[in-house]
């Protein structure tokens, strides 16, 4: 009998407390104040589990073609470096100001200071990158490039990202130089 009163009462109090906090405006929303560890873990887990589930069935094309590297490299240089940097660049206004901080893609994934879920599988890491580029991530600053770019172009960027951590500044410049014939036609 007591349970029938205590459990609903506790749930109601918790709901009232949660709504009160929500409407109080006390949570700091500025990008210059990090989330609490608990909030960060919840959001990161939510993100990684969602991406892993949504991307698990994607079919990966051959990512070793030089034409894909050239097409993806030129697009990366135009669209991504302001946040995700390029060889020889340590930071930018965007890489410092965004929260969560965009990963430095010139580094191997092991060197990133956030979780990528279970990406020990290289193929799953490629699927994850494709999905993120195509669909973006809510409230992170990462846009959904799939609205304006077809899958072929996005896979080309994934192909380039696989090689990016090993590229020197000179190699990066040569591969990303856009001469008007980036290899892939649309």
């Amino acid at each position, binding site marked *: 009998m007591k349970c029938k009163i205590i459990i609903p009462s506790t749930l109601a109090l918790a709901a009232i407390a949660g709504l009160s906090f929500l409407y109080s405006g006390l949570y700091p929303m500025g990008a210059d104040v990090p989330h609490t560890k608990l909030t960060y873990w919840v959001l990161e887990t939510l993100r990684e589990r969602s991406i892993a589930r949504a991307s698990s069935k994607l079919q990966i094309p051959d990512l070793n073609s030089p034409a894909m590297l*050239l097409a993806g490299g030129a697009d990366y240089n135009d669209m991504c470096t302001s946040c995700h940097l390029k060889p020889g660049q340590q930071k930018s206004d965007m890489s410092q100001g965004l929260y969560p901080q965009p990963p430095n893609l010139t580094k191997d994934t092991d060197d990133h200071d956030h979780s990528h879920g279970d990406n020990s599988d290289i193929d799953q890491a490629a699927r994850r990158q494709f999905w993120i580029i195509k669909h973006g991530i809510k409230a992170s600053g990462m846009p959904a490039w799939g609205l304006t770019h077809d899958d072929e172009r996005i896979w080309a960027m994934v192909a380039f990202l696989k090689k990016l951590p090993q*590229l020197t500044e000179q190699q990066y410049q*040569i591969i990303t*130089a856009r001469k*008007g014939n980036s290899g892939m036609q*649309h």
Partner: protein
Amino acid sequence: MKKINLKIALTGIALLLVSSTVFAHDRSKHKGKQEAPDCEAMKDMDHMDKMDPVMMAMMEQCSDEHDDDHEHGDNDHEDKHDDDHHGNDEHH
């Protein structure tokens, strides 16, 4: 007067809708960002495997560059370019 304002507003909305459909991210929008690859830097990369996709991509970029040079009548380095083309043909 109100009808005129309404027409202007409707025309504006229609123009916005039409322009949004052509706002795809096209490569032609990058024409102002074109730059030449620094192929001279490849001279210091002799240790690279020529079957490596990165090396093959760079060779493709720079072989195109050399082709462009020929088209512009730059014959001063003809022997060097010929050598490069022989190297590239093996991997294309």
